[in-house]
């Protein structure tokens, strides 16, 4: 009943990364994983490493990627088991609800991974989780005399086709995104766990990030030039780029550290100590990286001539308001973040800047003026009080 690691890689991991039929079968038990790790040769398969490299090259041209390790294997198994909860034949399994809760607990254990130790580690996790978010499912809908019957990612039995109302044209196929049609509550809970394990995926798809997520978890990617470019362009490619930016800005403001009001006291001897938890980086450079990426998102849309703010003007979401107000903070942040445009009128080689750059500068100036008319003054003042001092620290 247990699957070998080679079979699991061939039937699940490889199609997940490169495309194809991602086979979802019975859930993998923890003891199956223990059996799998006895022979980790399939993890070193050149085909698999090449597939991971190609998937990573969709983000950056020259990614730093380690070999698959056991954490990544646990992540894959957890993703597989997450899919099992949405299996259409789940009701026919002879098991009590308690057993299903055990399966969920085991899957959550697979997905509960430590904070990535490095960029390469986080990138490796994103390969699986990012591909998991893109999974498709081919549904077949058979029209019968009693109504439509949907076969989710399964072949239709022949007897069903014979019994359909119109045998030749009585069925149609739909290709849906699995994330959008996930019906099982266990899968939805486990999906949050999977997202929590991959901060890079949360940064690339912030609207699907779990509650309590902060962009500061992935600030190291925003400090890397290649990843920052990939993340900003992923945000800009979304039609709802204002909502994306608003989600990131809202999550950033919610995770800012509370300023200390007094001296911290040491616990009394013998008192219970707090458990160690994940520490959100709060260095000025980390916050500046996130704010800089959000301002760069504005600049990208100005370059694309796609910066239409008419719909967002009526939004009362504080995150969206903060996102729209961020370019207006540039006069205070330029000492740390710089400016999207060069303030020089000549290039370092002594030649005047091109006409296109001059046009871009004019459009960026008009955009800032438009934003100044659009954004309420209290939003800017709130950011000046709460955000700017954490980036520009004056002694």
């Amino acid at each position: 009943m247990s699957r070998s690691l080679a079979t699991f890689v061939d039937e699940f991991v490889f199609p997940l990364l490169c495309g194809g039929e991602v086979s979802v079968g019975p859930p993998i038990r923890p003891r199956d994983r223990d059996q799998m790790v006895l022979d980790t040769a399939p993890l070193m398969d050149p085909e698999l490493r090449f597939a991971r490299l190609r998937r990573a090259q969709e983000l950056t041209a020259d990614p730093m990627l380690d070999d698959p390790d056991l954490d990544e294997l646990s992540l894959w198994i957890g993703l597989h088991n997450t899919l099992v909860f949405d299996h259409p034949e789940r009701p026919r399994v002879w098991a009590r609800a308690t057993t299903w809760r055990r399966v969920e607990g085991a899957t959550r254990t697979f997905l509960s991974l430590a904070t990535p130790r490095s960029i390469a580690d986080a990138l490796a996790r994103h390969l699986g989780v990012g591909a998991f978010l893109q999974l498709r499912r081919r549904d077949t809908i058979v029209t019968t005399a009693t109504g439509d019957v949907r076969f989710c990612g399964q072949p239709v039995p022949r007897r069903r086709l014979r019994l359909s109302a119109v045998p030749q044209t009585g069925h149609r196929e739909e290709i849906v995104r699995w994330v959008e049609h996930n019906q099982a509550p266990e899968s939805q809970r486990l999906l949050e766990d999977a997202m929590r394990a991959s901060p890079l995926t949360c940064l690339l798809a912030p609207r699907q990030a779990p509650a309590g997520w902060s962009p500061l978890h992935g600030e190291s990617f925003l400090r890397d030039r290649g990843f920052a470019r990939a993340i900003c362009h992923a945000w800009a490619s979304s039609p709802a780029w204002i909502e994306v930016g608003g989600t990131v800005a809202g999550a950033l403001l919610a995770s800012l550290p509370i300023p200390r009001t007094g001296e911290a006291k040491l616990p009394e001897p013998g008192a219970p100590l707090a458990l160690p938890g994940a520490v959100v980086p709060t260095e000025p450079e980390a916050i500046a990286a996130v704010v800089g990426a959000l301002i760069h998102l504005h600049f990208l849309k100005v370059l694309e001539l796609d910066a239409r703010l008419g719909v967002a003007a009526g939004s009362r979401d504080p995150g969206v308001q903060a996102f729209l107000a961020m370019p207006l903070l540039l006069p205070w942040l330029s000492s740390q973040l710089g400016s999207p445009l060069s303030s020089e009128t000549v290039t370092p080689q002594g030649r005047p800047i091109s006409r296109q750059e001059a046009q871009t500068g004019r459009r960026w100036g008009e955009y800032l003026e438009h934003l100044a008319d659009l954004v309420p003054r209290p939003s800017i003042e709130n950011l000046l009080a709460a955000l700017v001092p954490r980036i520009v620290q004056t002694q």
Partner: protein
Amino acid sequence: MAGPLLEPVAAGQTRFRMQGLSPDARGIAVGRELLIVFPTLERLVAFLGAYSDEASLDDLVPTMTLEHAQRHGGGHAIVLRCGAGDGYAVDRLGRLSTATRGRLYTGGGSMFVRWREREAPFGYDLVAPLTLPAGADEVTVVELDSATTYATIDRMDPLDLIQRLQLRQVPLPLGGIGSDPELAGLKDMALVLVAPGLAERTLRHLWRLEVNMAGYYVQLAGDRNPSLLLRIRHPRPRALEILYGTPGVELLAPVSSRAAVEIGFRHPIQLASASSCLPGEEMFLFRGHAGRVERLDGPPRFVDGRHLVEATGAAALREVEQLQEAELSTLRVELVLRPTTQPREPRGVLIAWPQVELLRHLVYLIPPAALSASQVVPLAEGVVVLTGTSIGARSAAAAAGLGAGSIVPLGRRLGEAAPGVMVPDGWELWPRVRPALTRQLLGLGPEDHALFIDPASAPIRVRPEQLLPLDAALIGRLALSEASLQAPAADALAPGSVENRKLSRFALWGFGGSAPAPAADSGESGMGQ
């Protein structure tokens, strides 16, 4: 002193004391019937004529009755009764009856009240119900302060009246009807009624004039022989003048599909709007001078004019037999070349072999259109470059003569004596036969060319497959290397597709009681925990 009998109807009033009155859409009290009282018959005819000019009598005739009535207390009147429509139609009747000195009343049965006027814009109603004694054929009309009763003496058939009305004379154009046929109503069609004795002569005359006519013989009431009724479409003024001035011939203008009125007369009623006044399928001819109305049996069935005339010619054509055995060989001459001074557009050039090398250098000067239109054929005498022949030209520019032969200053120029027949410059074919016959005499195919290189030598036939494009003959063959497509090493990355395999009944076997093993060997806790 007796009080008024009528009172004005108020705006919005819906209940009336007089039976049969009801408000229309505008609130005007309208009865079921209308009654118009005319003092004389002439006034009635004037009313009908005016109404037919303005509207269609077909709306009025179905419900219309005409009665000759006697007034209680002395006097006679003509009473017209008809069904009432809406207020607008009744207003029109009221306006026309006022113009012809009639009085309009509305009501129903034997009681009618006055129609509305300026003082009572919504009509009149009785002040109190009247109980006047009225007989079976009596009607009572109520005025403001009096009531009058009319007793019917006799009834008139409206259709019979309309058909019996006397025609009225109208003036004709001073210059004759031929000067303005449209004024007389004869522009499109004219009907001609010919007396029996004049039928043959009239037909013969019109046939000579080539008049577009059709006709048939009709038997008029009281006549012994049938008369001829002709229909002439788009009559010419001259024919109309002759027919109008001929005694025994009457010109009639059609006023509707089944009625025609003689020229110079007019029916008091517009017959075009009174088709229901002419019952049945007969055709009516209103003759003014004769004072009669002719009712033809059935619809007219005209026969084309050529069947009505009688052919009397006796001339016959004689077939000529061809003289088969005639000998024409004495007429035959030879087709030869002879010198001429007539200039001719050069359509080709014969370049001797020693000069072909110079042609290679001149190719760079030839325009592309001329180069593509040029063809070449190698002969023993040299290379013939044909440009812009009328046969098989590959472009319009080539057919117009814009060829390399006009530009290449080499060899001997060739002109085109006939399509595809080239002769040297300064020579022509003798005798000058037709160009098509020249090709036929030379036995050329549709795409063949004939070249007269030298007056002393025989012409050369060049078939189309022997002609080579000049550009292709000059340019050396280029070898192209085949492009090779590099197949991508790997397929593009695509999102995976979930395939749910079959789950067995015991898919969760093993999840019973064992605690899940820790996932990672690292001791750190998960993010966000």
